[in-house]
């Protein structure tokens, strides 16, 4: 999300903002909302409506939806394909951040590489940017668990040889696969609604801490996109347009300029590609290119990728005051779990600038701006 704020507006407020975000957004293992309860009927509407459901409840605006992949709602969600277990697991967790590598970050634009595109996206040097990284929470984990059980049988039924049982599968046209797609899209819509609720909390928190009216804080969604999903898209293969199921995992969609699925205001630019780095260094906003569309089915990198396993990271962080180290660099961190923080130390990740440079040089997507963190909340 972009804002109408500059770095100077936050001077002396970053600590309070991080504290406020941490207080207002339920974070950590099994985190859940205490301020509202969803009925089964409501949850069904969430699964069908995605971010649109949240906006209809007053958590956001129509403009937000314009800036979300598929306007924040994947058609084809089938709540009836979702198990009672997934519903039970997901219901209390809507509007929460979760744990692991999920975060909300307050950043500033530290470098601008492409002034024209940055301007068109509404980005400027020293501007305050907020990044949210979370998904479908326990709901999605349970949808996956249920599908894995179903697919164990389907793999045998359809006589598919696989090298690892986690890769169990079924032909896309089979009833098993169709059911899974209906459940997966329900999970995607849960995730869109989840992020929309958090967006709303971010706006409220900024207004509260800075003691300004929400419209003066002017926090607007730049883009919101999935990075672990299978979607049906048309791409050119051997000179012919083909309808494909593209699964992006640890990757994100990067549509080229002119693509009809882009928000109208971005259509001449290409899709904004959000690449978070580790919490101590930087993140990037890139833009989709025709070359990426031709060579990678319109896909780009999603993050830096880990360099150290979680166990190795904890060993490397042992005995260190990580919060203090980051504070000395001007980054204020609040975390629900101490181990999460240790697992997520900056050196646990590859340098995202190297990853982004490769993607940029290969022409898969192009660098627009670099963001640097000021405040981070971790699950």
């Amino acid at each position, binding site marked *: 999300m972009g804002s109408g704020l500059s770095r100077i507006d936050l001077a002396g407020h970053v600590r309070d903002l991080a504290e406020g975000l941490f207080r207002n957004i339920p974070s*950590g*293992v*099994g985190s859940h909302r205490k301020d509202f309860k969803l009925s089964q009927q409501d949850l069904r509407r969430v699964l069908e409506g995605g971010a649109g459901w949240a906006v209809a409840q007053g958590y956001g605006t129509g403009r937000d939806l314009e800036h979300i992949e598929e306007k924040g709602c994947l058609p084809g969600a089938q709540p009836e394909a979702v198990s009672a*277990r997934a519903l*039970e*697991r997901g219901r209390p967790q809507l509007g929460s951040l*979760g*744990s*692991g590598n999920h975060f909300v970050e307050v950043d500033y634009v530290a470098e601008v590489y492409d002034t024209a595109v940055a301007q068109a996206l509404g980005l400027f040097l020293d501007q305050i940017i907020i990044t949210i990284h979370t998904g479908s929470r*326990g709901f999605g*984990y*349970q949808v*996956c*668990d249920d599908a*894995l*059980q179903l697919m*164990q*049988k389907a793999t*045998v039924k359809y006589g598919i040889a696989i090298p*690892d*049982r*986690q890769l*169990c599968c079924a032909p896309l046209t089979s009833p098993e696969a169709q059911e899974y797609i209906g459940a997966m899209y329900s999970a995607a819509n849960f995730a869109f609604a989840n992020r929309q609720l958090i967006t709303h909390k971010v706006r409220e928190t900024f207004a509260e801490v800075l003691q300004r009216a929400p419209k003066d804080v002017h926090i607007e969604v730049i883009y919101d996109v999935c990075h672990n999903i299978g979607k049906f898209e048309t791409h050119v293969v051997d000179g012919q347009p083909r309808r494909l199921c593209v699964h992006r995992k640890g990757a994100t969609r990067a549509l080229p300029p002119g693509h009809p699925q882009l928000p109208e205001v971005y259509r001449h630019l290409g899709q904004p590609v959000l690449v978070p780095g580790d919490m101590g260094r930087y993140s990037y906003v890139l833009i989709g290119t025709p070359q990426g569309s031709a060579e990678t089915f319109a896909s780009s990198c999603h993050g830096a990728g*880990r360099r*150290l*396993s*979680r*166990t*190795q990271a*904890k060993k490397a962080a*042992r005995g260190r005051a990580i919060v203090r180290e980051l504070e000395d660099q001007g980054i204020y961190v609040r975390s629900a*779990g*101490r*181990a*999460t923080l240790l*697992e997520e130390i900056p050196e646990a990740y590859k340098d995202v600038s190297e990853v982004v440079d490769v993607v940029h040089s290969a022409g898969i997507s192009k660098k627009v701006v670099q963001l640097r963190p000021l405040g981070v909340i971790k*699950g």
Partner: protein
Amino acid sequence: MPGDTPHPDIYEPLSHTGDLGMVAYGQDLPELFAHAAWAMFDLMSDATTIRPQRTVTLSVSAVDLEDLLVRWLSALLYLYDTQRLLCCTFHCTLCEPTHVTATVAGEPLDPDRHPIDTEIKAVTYHQIAVEQIAGHWQARVIFDL
């Protein structure tokens, strides 16, 4: 730190980029299943801090032994995610390699007493193995974090 105190008769953690795994040991299958479950809670928290105050009965079926282990651990993870129940004792009965019934005991998460560090999203089938080696059983499980 969870998983830091070694319990080599019960399990050993496995480091895996991005994720976390374990190898659990048992004299027989019921003990293997009990140890695997204890190990999972020890990776999430510190299993020695959990008191057996509440009892739950579980019955889990699967297509084979490896599937059974994954579903057994998934059922316990579901209890944790929905009821905040951390478990520490597991009395398992396997009548056949595709069905386990168990009485498990534990207590709801108390952040003041239970260090909670690792959120396990899911139990995976990745590199799953349940094997009998020299009269003992061992199982390898990778968790999605």
